[in-house]
């Protein structure tokens, strides 16, 4: 009768052999240039297992570039990134995915014509082991695998409370829900590190509250480590355990939300200073 039992905790935290509080990722002296433009200059910080780490800064501070470096989209000219104890050199986004890094985008990047369910299922594709041949056959091992993945996806749908849009093409959904579906797709990869690029951008207050709750639940219940970029200071200060502040591609502060809030450089960067 196990169809009736509750799944106790939704998809357990990925087992990466690390205890909470241990170093998950280290960014060391990273610099990134586009031609003559310095996007990031000599930045170092770390992300610990199980925390919510925020990267903030005014417009053009290099936040999204930093995220793109972490997820392998850009290769920095200088510096190294150590993820789960492994130093990585030049790599591509799909390597990052294999390593357990998933992300969402500032501008939602979903398959607009596909349903919520299919979009989240797409997030499972990295976990699929059967090759194209088996998948085309459909019966047998590929079907069994599909069912397993579907179960995981249903847990995510339940977790994000999007049952009512399961079959709706995401292009038809309001923006706030699209963001939620995108989070769902990232969660489907069962990442060790979840990168969120402005998860609250363009949302109204209620949507922001919902999203905050989901982010906290992902972190607390599933033990997923989260690094997020966000403009809404209220959200950042409430959600994060530690905050890195960038300005003009440089790190100007790093610490707990309270420490960062009272840091004079940060105040100057946000409010401007009289020169």
């Amino acid at each position: 009768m196990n169809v009736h039992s509750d799944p106790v905790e939704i998809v357990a935290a990925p087992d990466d052999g690390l205890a909470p509080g241990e170093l998950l990722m280290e960014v060391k002296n990273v610099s990134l240039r586009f031609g003559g433009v310095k996007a990031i200059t000599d930045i170092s910080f770390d992300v610990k297992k199980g925390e919510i780490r925020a990267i903030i800064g005014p417009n053009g501070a290099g936040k999204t570039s930093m995220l793109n470096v972490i997820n392998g989209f850009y290769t920095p000219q200088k510096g190294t990134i150590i993820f789960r104890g492994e130093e990585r050199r030049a790599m591509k986004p799909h390597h990052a995915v294999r390593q357990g890094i998933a992300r969402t985008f500032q501008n939602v990047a979903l398959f607009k014509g596909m349903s919520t369910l299919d979009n989240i299922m797409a997030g499972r594709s990295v976990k699929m082991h059967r090759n194209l041949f088996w998948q085309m056959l459909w019966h047998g091992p590929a079907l069994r695998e599909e069912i397993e993945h579907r179960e995981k996806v249903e847990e995510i749908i339940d977790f994000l409370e999007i049952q009512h849009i399961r079959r709706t093409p995401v292009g038809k959904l309001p923006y706030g829900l699209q963001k939620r579906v995108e989070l769902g797709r990232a969660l489907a990869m069962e990442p060790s590190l979840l990168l969120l690029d402005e998860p609250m951008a363009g949302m109204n207050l209620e949507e922001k509250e919902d999203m905050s709750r989901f982010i906290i639940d992902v972190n607390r219940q599933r033990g997923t480590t989260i690094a997020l970029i966000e403009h809404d200071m209220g959200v950042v200060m409430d959600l994060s355990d530690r905050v890195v502040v960038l300005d003009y591609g440089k790190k100007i502060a790093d610490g707990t939300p309270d420490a960062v809030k009272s840091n004079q450089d940060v105040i100057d960067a946000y409010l401007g200073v009289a020169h």
Partner: protein
Amino acid sequence: MVTTAATAGMNLDTFPKYLLLNAQRFGGRPAMRHKDYGIWQSWTWSEQLEEIRAFALGLQALGLGHGDKIAVVGANRPRLYWTFAAAQSMGAVPVPVYADAVAEEMAYVLNHAGVRFAVVQDQEQVDKIRSFSDRIPALKEIIHDEPRGLRDYDHTGLTAFTEIQDKGEALLAADPGLAERWERGVREASGSDISVMLYTSGTTGRSKGVMITAAGAVNAARDTAEFDRLSENDSVLAYLPLAWVGDHYLNYAQGYVSGLCMNCPESGETVAQDLREIGPTFYFAPPRIFEGLLTSVTIRMEDAGWLKRKLFDHFIGVAKRHGEAILEGRPVPLSGRISYTLGRVLVYAPLCNVLGLSNIRVAYTAGEAIGQDLFSFFRSLGINLKQLYGQTEAFLYVTVQKDGEVRADTVGPAAPNVDIRISDTGEVLFRSPGQFAGYFMQDETTAETLTEDGYVKTGDAGFFDTDGQLKIIDRAKDVGKLTSGALFAPKYIENTLKFFPNIKEAVAFGHGRDFAAAFINIDLQAVGNWAERNNIAYASYQELAGHPRVYEMIARNVDETNLRLSKEPVMAGAQIKRFLVLHKELDADDGELTRTLKVRRAFVAERYAPLIEALYDGSTEKYVETEMTYEDGRKGVVRATVRIVDAKTYPVARQTAREAAE
């Protein structure tokens, strides 16, 4: 009519006795389904019995005793329904409470009922109840269905449903005679015990706890289940609020006596999809849901292609002419039958399928008046939609329409074994099998509600039509008079207005005044869609409501309403002379509607007093500030200048009214 049945030596006068019986006679048949994780999970009657027994014994171990009250708060979930039977099997009394009630209301009910246990769905309700726990000293334990978000909570006095069941299972395993003793307890229970306590939604003043005895509840349910020939082959979608008598009666009570299968939707937002997947055979919805269905069909057809639209219009025309006659087995010309059959293949069957109404054998609507057009629309598609009239105090049914004798403007003759009488003042009085045993701890109010010979006063004004069907006009105390002496029945006027798809809600005024006037709420879905098609831009409800072209459109509706009123000799005197379109939707969170979404007239009148004055002092606009509550509980203020418009009235209809209207 069978009033007592003796099966397996039991006098079947409680629901747990039916649980035992059903587990025996329908053991392998589905009793309950719930869509969870995208799949319909299902429980047979014998599995359901095991779930209920384990929970009941777990509760007993926690100290639940005979007569204790258990609050049940949440959406339609199997475990909450099991709580009813589990409590009843121990002689305890379930008290379902509206899950979306604000803390203040809920605290009152829980305290008044003196609940010792509260079985709730999720974190939201745990938070709500804990926020006023100091005001409900009797509460010992909160039991929750869904553990989500509760992990870091203080778990004193907070237990998971499954934990209680595990305790019950452990006791059963340890003591081989326990199951037998539990069953004996169920068999020996008395039908005179209170089966459930249902709090009224409080249209007037504080909610009252309506006590229903087990035997009364079972008898009433058995009568109506027989009336509609419900059986174990029927299924219902349980989506109505748990605390409402209609849900408890139509799903739980009728479900247990007939053995039908109850289906719980995945969530409140998926009801339409779940309805389509389940295709229930018995269905109840208040008129506003049917209205919503029709509105969405109309909107979708307006967006459909040319050919589809033509087909739809043609065959809906055919259905209008012949559909009801075919449903009722009246003679129809052969050509009509052929067209209708073709229409069924091309339009009606696919449409019913999309709406989830393909398998409907019996459907009911009640709660408020339903428009003739709306009612006929669904009936003409071949859906056996009927009306009933009921009350919490009657444990639902007072009158019910028989198959084939159905009208939109009446609510039918007395239900089986119900006696109805109209008092000298025009109030409807009844005596019924499910009649309540009294209001909990309010003997005085109970006495006021009963006549000397034991009839219940409904508080509704009505009369029997020539064919013996009851017609309800309004709340007895709301029926008033204009200064001219003409009868003023606000609800009648409001209902006539609400039959227009653009008008969602209306409040009429006129008692003791010179003429009748009305507040109108537009229907955002219908009017919004109209605005989209007509290139009218708007940023908010308020802006759309105040748009000159919306006013023009509503004015046409009011005009039509007056024309209809003028044709009813009794109502013609109270046509709407002036109206306004309200700048804000009436909302239960602001106290303007009850939780069952009925207008709280006195409250609205007081809150919008300046607007009412403006209706009568001849001004053409009025500036108002209104406080409103957002979904998260914060309060804000809406400011608006509301326009007031005159409407045309018609002379009282004579014989020639029809021609004059042309």
